[in-house]
């Protein structure tokens, strides 16, 4: 028996994270099932003026090479994407990315709320949102957008988080379907993958 109630209707996974989320993201990406079919879109807080190094560090152990998409780059099945430094990352209705240099939101660019919000708009109930450890409230509103449009919401278990502010803010703002430790998120991806085989 699975602990998750899943199906194969989902079109994308979006992940937000900040302080303390790096190890979790690395673990999730390194244990991703081979050929995992959905695009994974990540908005992680990062130094604004360091363009290099982060995506390389994430790719090191990842099953799939992580890409910082260019503006208007099309989303690919199974692609793993990271919001580039000093840009907000959105998804457009034609299934391609767009970047923006709008004002910082929640003191952040990339802002998690922007990426989650645009994904919720485009994918509606076909989206899974995951919010990991972090020290501010960015992402809480984004998780609410996802839930309001019928998507599935997951946060990292605050008891495991280095800094619990971010998942707790989301839990306070909207309904969260699963509160999971990183190891359980890894299992979640495996279960999800089986739905598509």
């Amino acid at each position, binding site marked *: 028996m699975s602990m998750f109630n899943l199906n194969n209707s989902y079109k994308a996974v979006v992940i937000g994270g900040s302080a303390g989320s790096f190890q979790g993201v690395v673990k999730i990406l390194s244990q991703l099932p081979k050929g995992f079919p959905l695009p994974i879109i990540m908005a992680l807080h990062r130094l604004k*003026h360091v363009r290099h190094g982060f995506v390389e560090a994430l790719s090191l152990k990842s099953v799939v090479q992580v890409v910082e998409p260019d503006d208007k780059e099309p989303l690919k099945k199974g692609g793993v994407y990271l919001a580039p430094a000093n840009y907000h990352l959105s998804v457009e209705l034609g299934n391609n990315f767009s970047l*923006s240099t709008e004002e910082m939101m929640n003191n952040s660019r990339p802002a998690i709320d922007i990426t989650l919000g645009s994904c919720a708009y485009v994918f509606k109930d076909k989206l899974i949102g995951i919010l990991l450890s972090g020290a501010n409230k960015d992402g809480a509103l984004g998780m609410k957008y996802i839930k309001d449009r019928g998507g599935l919401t997951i946060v990292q278990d605050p008891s495991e988080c280095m800094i619990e502010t971010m998942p707790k803010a989301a839990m306070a703002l909207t309904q969260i379907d699963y509160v999971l430790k990183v190891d359980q998120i890894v299992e979640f991806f495996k279960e999800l993958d089986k739905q598509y085989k």
Partner: protein
Amino acid sequence: MQDIDIVDLKKISEFIFQKYQYDFRNYAMSSFKRRVQRILELKKLTVDGLLKKLSESPPFINEFLDELTVNVTEMFRDPSFWRIMREEIIPAILLNHKQFKIWHAGCSSGEEVLSMAILLKEMGILENVQLYATDLDTTILERAKTATYSLKNMELNEKNYIRFQGAGSLTDYYKVENGYAVFNKDLMANVNFRKHDLVLGEAFNKFDLILCRNVMIYFNQTLQNEVLKKFHESLFKYGYLAIGSKESLIWCDYANRFIVVNNEEKIYKKIKD
């Protein structure tokens, strides 16, 4: 934040096009939506209220444009880009022309054209270069002309300048007055500010270098195509085009008339008319 849908966005852009001849119909949807939502929030309006205000109060369009366009920029944004400009691109232009012209398309509050003026001054060639700085938003153009920036922005500008490895210190170029950094007016002597609409406007001159960084990201691919055609028309053969570090021309029809000079900094060269 009010949720608005595509039908609302289309209504707004269509209305503005008909009444004011600004064309946002081919703007990228997600950022255009956020900008409109932001205006609704700032002005405490509904979509219908906004349409009513645009219809009844023509001066409001300027305020609307100023809030709609993204005016977030930095001096020497991406210092590595500016080093390539100083060490490779400008010297390459100088091989053929002692005097040349640069166009900053979508100059916003002017940080970039000011950065270029400082770079040229440090190369000792500022007098030989005509700079054109254009934007759709007249409010921001007026601000750009003053070359005055809030001191709270200067920390980042200074950091970028240091990483650009400028010849002196950025403080050499400005005085502090009432909490603002007021830049030396001599830097702007060869800068020609003018209102220009990249979407509906025509090509107006020929250039050796065009900078349009992080502007076309607000356009959809159809519009990016059209604007690239105008840049192509506005460049001398073997002239350069610089776009933002995460932008790309490869999805545009005219891409094959350019070659990549520097892929990291997204600098292209026109090779075919």
